[in-house]
């Protein structure tokens, strides 16, 4: 691929041949708003919010679909494109329920952000709104297509990235909606990639409903504790409780994609069945005890057995669930304190 020079807002930039105006703008920190565009997905060009003006072309063009050409001269924020974006937003809002106070996406909604950025007040297109019932049948994904802006990112991620194709656009015009085959209840792998792609609150995590507002949470970057792939997780935590799990797209092996266990399998952390006190079997029954008692009793019993039967009568099973640091200390503990190599973990199981 060759290089060529283009101008954006009067400044010169070097661009890869074949890249789009949006690519070059993003690479150089120039803000152009988008709704339907995502770097992992095929180009859609449907939302029309990324319009820019190009010198010599009669009308504004969508920056996400227009390849750069030699000496192209682009303006990203002319009065014409700003007016167009305002109109696009008004049109979207004319068919979008303004229930932001009870929407899980509030505070992280692109439509909300753009409405604020372009100072949209009032609406010239107010009228009838679509009526699409909310589907909450499955335990994972709340599908409220009344809030949908039909950017198609969910259908594309499902088809192009996950290979499932569980959802697609159905119907035409005003009746267009995202639907399953035959408009049946959604049954898919529930990976939640569609939720992560949704720029508004049409798709949200059902278990997280009414549990948090985005600004109330802290985010902790960690690694998934299920299979050996090692996907990166972002735990959203409110008041010592994990309320949502997402994943970063940059610099992670899973590029923001998770499976159903990675995205939803965190509830066990807060289960009321968690052990909260050491237990010692007394008269055949496991009875709560203090740490002090449990530790000294345990150490005494291990020492007794070692003395009576020799070190090889003791053994330790560590865990493929635990961290490297824990496993390292565990084997060190067994080798030093038990004086045996009777040591293994669940690798074979």
């Amino acid at each position, binding site marked *: 691929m060759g290089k060529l020079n283009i101008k954006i807002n009067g400044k010169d930039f070097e661009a890869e041949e074949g890249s789009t105006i949006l690519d070059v703008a993003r690479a150089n920190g120039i803000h152009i708003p988008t709704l339907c565009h995502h770097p992992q997905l095929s180009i859609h060009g449907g939302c029309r919010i990324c319009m820019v003006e190009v010198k010599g072309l009669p009308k504004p063009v969508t920056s996400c679909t227009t390849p750069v050409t030699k000496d192209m001269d682009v303006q990203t924020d002319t009065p014409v494109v700003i007016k167009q974006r305002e109109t696009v937003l008004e049109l979207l809002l004319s068919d979008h329920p303004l229930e932001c106070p009870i929407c899980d996406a509030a505070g992280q909604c692109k439509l909300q952000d753009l409405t604020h950025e372009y100072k949209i007040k009032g609406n010239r297109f107010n009228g009838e709104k679509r009526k699409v019932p909310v589907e909450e049948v499955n*335990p994972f994904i709340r599908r409220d297509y009344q809030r949908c802006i039909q950017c198609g990112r969910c259908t594309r991620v499902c088809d192009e990235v996950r*290979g499932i194709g569980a959802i697609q656009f159905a119907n035409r015009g005003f009746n267009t909606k995202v639907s399953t085959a035959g408009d049946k209840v959604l049954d898919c*792998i529930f990976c939640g990639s569609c939720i992560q792609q949704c720029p508004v609150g049409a798709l949200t995590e059902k278990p997280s409903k009414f549990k948090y507002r985005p600004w109330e949470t802290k985010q*902790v970057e960690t*690694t*998934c*504790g299920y299979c*050996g*792939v*090692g996907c*990166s997780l972002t735990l959203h935590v409110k008041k*010592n409780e994990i309320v949502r799990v997402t994943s970063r797209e940059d610099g992670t*092996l*899973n590029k923001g*994609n998770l*499976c159903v*266990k990675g995205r939803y*399998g965190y*509830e*066990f952390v807060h*289960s009321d*069945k*968690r*052990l*909260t006190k*050491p237990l*010692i079997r007394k008269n055949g029954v*496991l009875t709560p005890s203090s740490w002090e008692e*449990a*530790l000294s*009793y*345990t150490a005494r*019993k*291990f*020492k007794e057995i070692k003395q009576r039967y020799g070190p090889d*009568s*003791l*053994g*330790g*099973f*560590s*865990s493929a*669930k635990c*961290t*490297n*640091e824990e*496993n*390292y*200390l565990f*084997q060190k*503990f067994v*080798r030093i304190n038990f004086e045996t*190599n*009777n040591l*293994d*973990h*669940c*690798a*074979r*199981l």
Partner: protein
Amino acid sequence: MSNSLHDLDEADVFLVTGSNTTEAHPIIGMQIWQAVRHKNKKLIVIDPRKIELTKYAAMHLRQRPGTDVAVFNGLARVIMEEGLADLDFIKDRTEGFEEAKEVIMKYTPEVVEKISGIPKEQLIEAARIYGKAERASIYWAMGSTQHINGVRGVHSIVNLAMLTGNIGKPGTGVNPLRGQNNVQGACDMGCLPNQFPGYKPVNVPENVERVEKVWGVKVPAKPGLTLTEMVNSMGKEGGIKGLYIMGENPMMSDPDLNHAKESFDSLEFLVVQDIFLTETAELAHVVLPATSFAEKEGTFTNTERRIQRVKKAVNPPGEAWEDTKIICALSKEMGYPMEYPSASKVMDELASVTPIYECVSYEYLDKGIAVHWPCNSCSIDRTSCGTLIMGTPVLHEEKFTRGAGKFMAFEFQPSTEWPDDEYPLILTTGRNLWHWHGGSQTRKVSSLNERSPEPYMELNAADAKKMGIRDSEEVRVSSRRGEITLKAVVSDRPTPGVVFIPWHYKEAAANILTINALDPQAKIPEYKVCSVKVEKTGGGQKEANRYSHYPG
């Protein structure tokens, strides 16, 4: 994995065997699908079951469970016969080829068809696709290894890669998919009876000295018992009397659970450190409350040998302690005080006794650098996608760890138990998408439990018809070791004569049925083949649960 996920899609051909990747390693399954769909790569699946991958595979070879050694020998023979072997690679990089060839040449496509049931034309075609590929990678999981000839099966897979020079380059390699988040790390850390951290044999004086120098005490140099051997020794003269278990639930994961229970019951003293009162903890004399992955600092090492950070997000409940704190406190009581101000300091110490982790430290990990062991240099590279990399994403580039790659070919050996009149079906166990392992975590997640609420057995439609069993009907499955009752899911996923049971559900634990037969070298149980019989309970057809397995 000899290779990494950074270079996965550089393969032209993927050979996946003994792995239901889409359900057990979903993100790798997704990446293989993307390579097939978007980059026109070819996929060969060798697996008895119809799985999601087989929908877009160029070829699906359905062998009889337990016959992998014959199949891979057969593939190797076709590759040699057709002149597709990489003779330069064999000459420059390997040894033992001539001896191996003698065994391999016995496995003609006709012989393999007789043993495995794979039509010879399919075997030849698959060998051609793999053999002609510029770059081909092999992926496998427990479907290949959980057999009494698991080690032999893996050797025969590795032979195929060496025979075609598919090792040491991006998009090639021999890539076992590790089933648990940190099974790689637990092995790396020396939680093994014969190896210190970094796979250093315990009976080599130099290795003993390395750890003794850092730990400041004498350590035993005699190899110990594996997990399965320890369980088998319990209750016997000279066997295990006291056991310390951290974060493991053998009363779900061990084979032949009735036997396992007898073993654990015979212990004089059992300590279980866990986050739940698991089936194993219920048998313990002392239970120590520990922390989940979200409640502590540390690292996991994934299937591609990449070391990644685990961070504390929430406080542990009640008086639960971090596992490191418990181990250190208990060690102090035992007379060897251990103290570490932070997990990062533990990493610094373990890096000093684990040569493959030499340059690993939180300083690099916290910057988001992809650190793959062996990591003996702090130099940082950048991949074509801009990821920063330290260490060794692709193993065996110039030479193998042992020098020359050794061909090891073996004769096919039948499984311990084979169907007979009394127990006419083969049982094979595994995972589904919705739950994980013994289920102590996922069965406590309401959404996952709603989607997959109960145990089930996949039964081939032809077998079901013969036995008069309808879909969703309750059946009793029994082996020589025990019986369970669960629902039959009639489908074309298992081959006729084979039933599949996911082992996540304690109310019908599949391991009550499995056989306690071990691979003589790896001591891995033969979870993938044992014989069972299936009978109707008369409990009738339960409410159809359309949610039992993979959608579609």
